């Protein structure tokens, strides 16, 4: 059992939870994730460790409400417990001084991007970040990203904040302007697909952090498999980061929808339950 020690609302649908997990806080590196199970009936879902405080023995998760489990988690209040949490999982980000890095985060993808931006900045890179969302209230962690970026460009679909336009438009502006040595892209599958096409066009080495469906998170089930460079890889143990230009995004997007019907049913059932209360 892991205790929630503090909670912060980033937007209506995005919540940050600081959770007691001393061993994980100590062992984790940028790029790692945990598997959590909310309660005895809960499913196991992966969440990136957004930051950690080794002195306090806590880690921070940033969670976007998309279905039953993420809603249960975002409803937790300080003092309450997460039933199970295991980690840190996955391969840590490869960090070195590349030169100039273009870091792109879409939606809640900014949360997993944050520790990577921090690590890249500390390794001596010039970091230019593009953060994008549908509208102003969905832009999260702006100040934290700014703290580790030399420049931040904000894009919103509706123009309610920063520039109006897609993440790829913001990326193009920077790529036209200066030489980029490396790019990191994290966000919804569809955003990563198009953003990767942009960097590919300009021959910029790029990593993406994939968000496939997981069950155990330790390599035991193969639910998370994805084709990278024509080979099947397990995102939980071989990833979650891969060479963006080798990933079969269409296959990944298709597999992400594999349980849509079941998820919809579960969500409807959960709504009924919440309504009754």
């Amino acid at each position: 059992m892991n205790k929630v020690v503090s909670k912060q609302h980033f937007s209506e649908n995005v919540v940050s939870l600081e959770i007691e997990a001393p061993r994980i806080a100590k062992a984790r590196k940028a790029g790692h994730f945990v598997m959590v199970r909310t309660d005895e009936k809960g499913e196991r879902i992966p969440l990136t460790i957004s930051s950690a405080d080794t002195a306090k023995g806590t880690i921070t998760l940033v969670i976007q409400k998309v279905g039953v489990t993420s809603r249960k988690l975002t409803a937790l209040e300080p003092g309450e417990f997460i039933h199970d949490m295991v980690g840190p999982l996955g391969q840590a980000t490869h960090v070195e001084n590349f030169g100039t890095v273009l870091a792109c985060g879409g939606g809640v993808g900014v949360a997993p991007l944050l520790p990577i931006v921090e690590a890249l900045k500390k390794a001596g890179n010039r970091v230019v970040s593009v953060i994008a969302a549908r509208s102003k209230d969905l832009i999260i962690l702006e100040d934290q990203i700014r703290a580790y970026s030399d420049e931040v460009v904000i894009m919103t679909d509706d123009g309610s904040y920063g520039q109006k336009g897609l993440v790829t438009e913001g990326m193009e502006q920077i790529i036209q302007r200066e030489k980029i040595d490396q790019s990191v892209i994290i966000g919804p599958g569809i955003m990563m697909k198009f953003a990767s096409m942009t960097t590919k066009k300009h021959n910029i080495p790029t990593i993406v952090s994939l968000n496939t469906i997981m069950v155990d998170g330790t390599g035991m089930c193969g639910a998370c498999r994805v084709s990278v460079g024509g080979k099947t890889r397990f995102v939980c143990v071989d990833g979650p980061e891969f060479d963006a230009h080798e990933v079969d995004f269409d296959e990944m997007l298709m597999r992400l929808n594999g349980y849509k019907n079941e998820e919809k049913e579960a969500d409807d059932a959960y709504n009924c339950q919440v309504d009754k209360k």
Partner: protein
Amino acid sequence: KERTDLTRVKMPEAPARERARSYVEVNSGLTPEQAINEASRCIDCANPTCISGCPVGINIPKFIKNIERGEFLDAARTLKETNALPAVCGRVCPQEKQCEASCFYQVKMNREPVAIGYLERFAADFEQSGGEISIPEVAAANGTKVAVVGSGPAGLAFAGDMAKFGYDVHILEALHEIGGVLKYGIPEFRLPNGVVDVEIESLRKMGVQFETNFIVGKTATIQELREEGFKGFFVGSGAGLPRFMNIPGENLVGILSSNEYLTRVNLMGASTQGMDTPVMRGKNVVVIGGGNTAMDSVRTALRLGADKATIIYRRSLEEMPARVEEVKHAQEEGVEFLTLNNPVEYIGDDKGRVKQIRVQKMELGEPDQSGRRSPVPVEGSEYIIDADTVVVSVGVSPNPLIPQSLPDLKVSRWGTLVVDEETFQTSIPDVFAGGDIVRGGATVILAMGDGRKAAASMHQYLQGQ
């Protein structure tokens, strides 16, 4: 004379039609009367060959004679002298290849062997149901901390013996449940979780400590655990990685490993109302493979509501590695067997979900290394069958987490840990290992045997320190 005239008992079973749609245990267990009768078949051989067929050397005639005399609790005690999980082994051991294959009846008279497995289960269940579980005696605490990586049968057996020797034993388990494959793999209708929990509870009473959600090599390294005072390590991390066939279309939606399928149902409770984890409930489910895992998957498919559940296996029924009883139960429940067939490609619909399988016919050629006749594809024999869910159950590989985190550890080219055959010590002196991580996919009882031998030799090693 009279003893040998008796015929072998038939295990009472839930009716095939009903059980195929529910999770009740298929074998319902012998009645005391049936058990006593069956026990009286055993002629208490002067040289009981059955014992040599049991990997942990249970004193089989002794426990059977306990049963014949009606001393059921003594029978359970006899079993526990050598086997920490008799209720489990009585259910899942491939007895027809082990103890029963070496029984006098089988060997000398070519008759059906004494039902050793059924009797073992009977004695263990009798003890469990009476609530009077005998807890083995534990030596005075010696204050030495040892860690067990993984809570499958290898780790549990090791922990039991080390607790008896007086060690402070900590089992560290990656998942949120204790039991390894016994919990996440083998289904409820064959091995109820409650049966495993009773055995785990016994270990707890003996002082064994359990920590779930702890991945050795990730949450903490062996070196960090050494610094926390652990003096010895037993790695029983299993062979939990699923293999795929790497054929076109294998990543389509609706194609999953048996590990994923069984984990969703057994560990995560996906078939139970009110549980959050989903599972695909196909109507036309095809399972690829012929081992226990394949049988468990195909029978699970029926219980999840499949109209049709089919096994595709590339050899013939005779070469199937699954327990004979499992194959028989599957047949009774209506599973179709497409033997001497092999999938070569999966075909999806416009949403990327599997809808068909291209299958190739096989014939048997020369025996291979395993001694079984090897399957050879028949050219030009390909045809297409329909399927909406496919479960791939073609074997498992050793868990790489521990070798990855311990670069000095000697590993074979199959990824299994290399150990001394007698002592189960690895190339790192304070690290011992056993079970599937050493053998590749094997059996529950072999894993337990390894755990016990490793405990004996680690005890010696630590005493010598």
